[in-house]
């Protein structure tokens, strides 16, 4: 039975991508998915060779035909997103709702499809990687995330793979929800900072909301052990398992600079801790 695990952090920069890259190296039969579609980094460690590159068309943008427009001003007045000024549409502000298109008395407005990114399927030395790039200033990151997951699922099914390992986006909004719903497990990587704790609570809330079971991992735990204890207390009150504590060690950064998963860069403490984490995660997924 194929299992899907998504690695999230609430706050970015907690070491999520480094941990996913280690799982890529440690797990046997898997496909990887990078759902952080607006600032993807996993490819920097996995060095993919792109096999398939598809344009992602989604959403629409209004456009006014100057020749036809009588400058009646109705569209400007009704657009709730302030996207029309001086009878021109600002494509960055336009949400593509089409309201203006429907009400223009002289049919001067057209809704045009917009290309909002690319989705990729690649090979890496760790197996397949599904990833994407959202165009700058584009909407619909949620839909692109859904597409990446769907690609990964198809590959996993076709090749009978055990795991889909997903690098999730930061935050708790639309792309996070899209990467999370229906997954078997969410691993939340946090830091022992007050902001980290605050963000962890919110992301746990989102996982609960969508009924996804949670495991927590405290990265850089020795940066502030009081806060690490606080996280563990909080988790135990909430009935959540803290699967690992990972030490604050510059090897994490050095491995990124070398373009390697840290478990391949060194054999030190951090590597042991991440290996144990993967053990716990994979055992939990078996259940």
């Amino acid at each position, binding site marked *: 039975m194929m299992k899907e695990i998504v690695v999230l*952090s*609430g*706050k*970015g*920069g907690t070491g999520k*991508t480094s941990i996913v890259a280690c799982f890529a190296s440690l797990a046997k039969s898997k496909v990887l998915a990078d759902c952080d579609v*607006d*600032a993807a*980094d996993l490819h*920097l460690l996995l060095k993919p060779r792109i096999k398939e590159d598809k344009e992602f068309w989604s959403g*629409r943008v209004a456009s006014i035909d100057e020749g036809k427009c009588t400058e009646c001003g109705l569209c400007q007045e*009704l657009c*709730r*997103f302030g996207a029309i000024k001086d009878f021109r549409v600002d494509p*960055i*502000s336009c*949400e593509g*709702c*089409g*309201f203006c298109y*429907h*009400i223009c008395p002289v049919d001067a407005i057209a809704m045009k499809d917009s290309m909002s990114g690319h989705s990729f399927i690649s090979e890496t030395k760790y197996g397949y990687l599904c990833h994407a790039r*959202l165009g*700058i*200033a*584009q*909407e619909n*990151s*949620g839909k692109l995330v859904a597409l990446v997951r769907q690609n990964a699922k198809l590959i996993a099914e076709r090749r009978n793979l055990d795991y889909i390992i997903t690098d999730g*986006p*930061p*935050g*708790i*909004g*639309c*792309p*996070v*929800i899209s990467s999370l719903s229906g997954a078997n497990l969410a691993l939340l990587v946090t*830091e*022992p*900072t*007050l*902001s*980290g704790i*605050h*963000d962890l609570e*919110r992301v746990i809330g*989102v996982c609960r*909301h969508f009924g996804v079971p949670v495991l927590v991992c405290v990265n*850089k735990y020795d*940066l*502030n052990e009081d*806060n690490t204890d606080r996280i563990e207390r909080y988790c135990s009150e909430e009935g959540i398992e803290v699967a690992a504590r990972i030490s*604050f060690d*510059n090897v994490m*950064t*050095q491995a*990124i*600079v070398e*373009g390697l998963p840290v478990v391949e860069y060194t054999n030190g403490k951090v590597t042991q801790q991440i290996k144990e984490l993967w053990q716990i995660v994979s055992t939990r997924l078996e259940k």
Partner: protein
Amino acid sequence: MIISVASGKGGTGKTLVATSLALSLKDNHKVQLLDCDVEEPNANILLRLPIKQSQPVYIPIPRVQEAKCTYCGKCAEVCAYNAIAVIKQKVLVFPELCHGCGGCSYLCPESAITEEGRGVGIVERGSSGNLELIQGKLNVGEAMAPPVIREVKRYTNPANIVIIDVPPGTSCPVIEAVKGSDFCLLVTEPTPFGLNDLSLAVEVVSELDIPCGVIINRVGVGSKEVEQYCCRERIPILLTIPLDREIAALYSRGIPLIEGMPRWREEFLRLFQDIKGMVPASRLAK
């Protein structure tokens, strides 16, 4: 003057910079800090201002008066997000999909649709002396951050120094937060991740035509690539902050850098002067 503090990638120290800049300026200026990272607002963890006012953010969603409705299907036809559907003798509204554009209620031939507010988040305000904080919080489980960000930004008073803490990434919430700024500070790290995400953030600000400068955080372990990139692209590096366990530990306890290590105040004041020198007067006049 409106200065936004952004970074393609999260966790680079954006909030550390935004709060320290605000605190260093507040003695001589009126400062507003807008926390537009509404999915994970963190600025007030460091500032600890008492919240005095709290207001829900609503999206107007349709409510159909069945008595007037003829099930003509017009509303479903105009909705670009499939947020309203007409099935036989029933109109279904899917509130989570609705962007509140107002199209269906305006276009319903029977005027059968009114609107009601659906809470998606809150905006909170607090202040102390010259420093005012406005922070948005997206409700847990909600997908759309931009309406909350727009509400936070309504409090902008350009006569003040306005500092905006921007969410990570490059998509719609980032644009919503950054647009209208006079200057954008991009906070990054000296790693391949930092470089990759910085170059995306630079694309965003150039798309919006906003001048920018870079702050490199956690300098020490890492590579020179970010500096080389900035040099090549002629983007000024305005400040570097070393990788220092003491700085990280202060942050972990929620202590602003310039309070824990007051010698940084001078650096942030100089940063502000540099920014002022880089914002063309014509921009501010707008």
